[in-house]
């Protein structure tokens, strides 16, 4: 193995160990720290957006602009794939 892969493997393991020990600072699974934003959404998703489904109210109303970006991503992926394969017709 030449020097480059050894250096890459070394850097890779250092970052992996570094990340591994940093996740123990996060809040334990199942007990999120502060939840003020999500509680606000759960409590008045029905009267503010008129839907029963909290997740859809976040996807389309509270954070609807993300879903517009989302739709653009799918639209650009389709435009990209069709552009790359624009010459396959006989």
């Amino acid at each position: 193995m030449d020097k480059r892969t050894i250096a890459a493997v070394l850097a890779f393991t250092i970052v992996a160990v570094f990340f591994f020990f940093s996740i123990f600072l996060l809040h334990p699974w199942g007990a999120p720290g502060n939840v003020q934003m999500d509680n606000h959404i759960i409590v008045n998703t029905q009267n503010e957006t008129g839907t029963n489904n909290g997740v859809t109210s976040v996807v389309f109303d509270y954070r609807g602009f993300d879903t517009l970006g989302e739709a653009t991503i799918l639209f650009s992926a389709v435009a990209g794939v069709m552009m790359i394969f624009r010459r396959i017709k006989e």
Partner: protein
Amino acid sequence: MIEYIPYVAVICMIFIGLYAAIFRRNLIKMVIGITIIESGVNLFLITLGYREGGVAPIYTSLPPGTTYPEQMVLPVPQALTLTSIVIGVAVLALMLSLVMHIYRKYGTLDVQKIRRLKE
């Protein structure tokens, strides 16, 4: 330690995917590596939003006696993961169409051989 098992799984998935993306020479294996990183990050987002004994934040026929908002799972990470999954599909479609074209043009999927053919 037991509450941190999902995060350990997240870190393992991310770094397995990163290993495949960096060290594998076959193009398809790099694409698979990126998909593994992507599912690792999605798992991370979802584990952030879980509440002990939580129910999905949907009010249609809620199991009786669940006190909201304490016993409901956080909705925002699920919306973020939905966006991230569709991003994964879009990136995957683009990468695979590029790989198909590169294979059609160079006849090989090995990065070293492609670099040699290019000169």
